[in-house]
C-alpha cells in the first residue's frame, strides 16, 4: 500500500486515516453521534459492525466506546468539542478511565473554529477538563500530516488518548512524538508553542532572541525538555496554548519547582464568556492570540525581566 496523500484539513485527514485503519486493523471501531457520519458512510458500508452511529446521544457514544474497549476493541469516539468532552464528561471519567480501558477521543472545532455558531460550539476548556483525569495522552496537532502520524501511533495501544483537531493549521508539519521539539534557539527566553499556535508564535518572535519549542503532545508534559531549554537560555518561559489560558502553567511550575523562574501564559481568556460571532481571526485577536498581540505580550514580559 502506498503512503496516503495528506488531506488539507485535520478533520478530513482523521477520516482518511481511520477509514484506512478500519480495513487493516480489526480492532478499530468508530463511534459517532451523527457528527461526521456522512464522512464515514463508505466505511460503514464496508464495516457495518465497526462503524457505529448511535444518533445524537453523546453519553451513549462514550459509554459504547467503553463497552467496545471492554471486549478488546480500539474505539475511536468523535464529535464537536463540547459534545464529546463536556456533555459526556462523566462518561469519559467513568466509562473509560475508571473501567481501566481507553479510547481515542477525537474532537473537532477546537476553541473557536466555528465562530458564527457561537458559544454552544466552543469548548476552550477541553484540555483543562481532560487534564483532571489521570493517564490521558493529549495530542494537539498543528497540521493534518501530524494528525495522521499521531493517530497511527495511538491506534495499536489501549490507553486513553485525546486528539484535538482544529481548522487552524501551521504551514508545515513538524515531527511528532513525545516532548518539546526545538524550532529555534535564542538567549532571552523560552517560548512554548502548542499545536496550531506555532505559526503565530514564529511570526510573533521573528525579531526576538528567544528559543521556540513546539509540541503536538501536551500530555504527558515533557518536563525534562523544558528544563534543558531553560538551562540553555533563561528561565523566562512563555506558554502559548490554543485553549484555556494557563492550562499547562502547573506543569511548567512543577517542572521548574527548584529553578527561580517566571512564566507567562497566553491562551483563551478565562475571565469572561466572549459573546461574539464573526471570524476565527477576530476571536484570536480578542483573546490576544494574533501574532501582533502575542509579540506585544512577549516583549512586555521579557522587558520586565531586564528592568
Amino acid at each position: 500500500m502506498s503512503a496516503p496523500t495528506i488531506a488539507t484539513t485535520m478533520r478530513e485527514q482523521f477520516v482518511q486515516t481511520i477509514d484506512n485503519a478500519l480495513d487493516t486493523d480489526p480492532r478499530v471501531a468508530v463511534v459517532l453521534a451523527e457528527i461526521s457520519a456522512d464522512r464515514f458512510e463508505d466505511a460503514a458500508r464496508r464495516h457495518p459492525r465497526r462503524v457505529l452511529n448511535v444518533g445524537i446521544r453523546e453519553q451513549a457514544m462514550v459509554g459504547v466506546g467503553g463497552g467496545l474497549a471492554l471486549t478488546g476493541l480500539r474505539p475511536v469516539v468523535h464529535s464537536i468539542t463540547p459534545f464529546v468532552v463536556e456533555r459526556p464528561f462523566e462518561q469519559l471519567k467513568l466509562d473509560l478511565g475508571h473501567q481501566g480501558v481507553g479510547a481515542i477521543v477525537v474532537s473537532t472545532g477546537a476553541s473557536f473554529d466555528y465562530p458564527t455558531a457561537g458559544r454552544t460550539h466552543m469548548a476552550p476548556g477541553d484540555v483543562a477538563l481532560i487534564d483532571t483525569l489521570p493517564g490521558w495522552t493529549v495530542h494537539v496537532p498543528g497540521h493534518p500530516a501530524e494528525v495522521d502520524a499521531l493517530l497511527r501511533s495511538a491506534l495499536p495501544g489501549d490507553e486513553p488518548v485525546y486528539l484535538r483537531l482544529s481548522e487552524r493549521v501551521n504551514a508545515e508539519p513538524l515531527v511528532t512524538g513525545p516532548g518539546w521539539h526545538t524550532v529555534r534557539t535564542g538567549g532571552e527566553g523560552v517560548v512554548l508553542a502548542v499545536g496550531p499556535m506555532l505559526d503565530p508564535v514564529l511570526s510573533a518572535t521573528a525579531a526576538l532572541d528567544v528559543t521556540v519549542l513546539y509540541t503536538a503532545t501536551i500530555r504527558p508534559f515533557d518536563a525534562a525538555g523544558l528544563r534543558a531549554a531553560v538551562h540553555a537560555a533563561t528561565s523566562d518561559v512563555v506558554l502559548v496554548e490554543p485553549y484555556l489560558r494557563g492550562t499547562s502553567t502547573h506543569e511548567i511550575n512543577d517542572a521548574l519547582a527548584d529553578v527561580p523562574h517566571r512564566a507567562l501564559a497566553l491562551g483563551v481568556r478565562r475571565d469572561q464568556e466572549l459573546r461574539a460571532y464573526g471570524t476565527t481571526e477576530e476571536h484570536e485577536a480578542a483573546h490576544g492570540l494574533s501574532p501582533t498581540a502575542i509579540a506585544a505580550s512577549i516583549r512586555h514580559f521579557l522587558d520586565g525581566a531586564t528592568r
Partner: protein
Amino acid sequence: MTITTTYGYADLRPLMSAMTGDEKHDVAATSTLDVLWVLYDQVLSVDPQRIDDPDRDRFLLSKGHGPMAFYAVLAAKGFLDPAELTNFGAFDSRLGFHPDRVLAPGVEIGSGSLGHGLPLGLGVVLGLRAQDRDRPRVVVLVGDAELDEGSNHEAIQVAGRWGLGQLTTVVVDNSSSSTGWPGGIADRFAREGWAVHTVDGRDHDALRRALTDTHPDRPLAVVAEVEPKEL
C-alpha cells in the same frame, strides 16, 4: 453445567451479614438478592475458572450501590473468598460500597454513579458482535429509579432499534422512582422494540423463565418487582 460449590441460596444472608459497614444500603442490597442468585445459579454462563474467557456471559451491575448481595453471590459461586467479605469497605479491601472491576474478580464494571451500565452493556454487545461472538449474553441490572437517568434511554433506544438480542436488562423495581412510569416500566421498553416480562422478583422459577426467554432479533427486558423501598 454444574458448578461445584458448598454454598446455596440459604447461605447468602449469612454471607451478607459478614458485611456490616453499610446498613443504609441494606434494603437496596436485599432487593437484588433473588435476581442475582437466579442469574448466577441458573442463567449465566460464567465461572471463576474462566473470568477472562471472551465467550463468557457478562453481568453488569449498573445499580452499584448496596452491592452486598452481589458480593455474597460472587462468594457463594467461588469468585471471592468468603473470608474477604468481613473486610468490606476497608481501605485495603477489594470490596467497596460500590464495586470496582479493576479490584474485584468477576466484577465486569465499576459502578456507583447511576446510568452508566446500560450504555456500557450496549457497547459490550456491539464489541462482541463486531468480533462475531454471537453467543455470549450481556445482562445489565438497573434499579427502577436509575431509569430516571437519561443516559439509559439513549441505550434503550439504540439497542431496541438495532435489535440486539444478546442484551438483557433486568430492572429491579422497588418503586423507588419519585416520578414513576405511567403504564409500567415494561411498557416503556416494549415501545422501544424490546421483548418484555414483568415478574415477581422473589419468585425464582418465574425469574428463570423470564431471564431465559431471549429472542435473536430483539433485546430482552425483565422487570423484577419487589417490595417497595422503605423510606
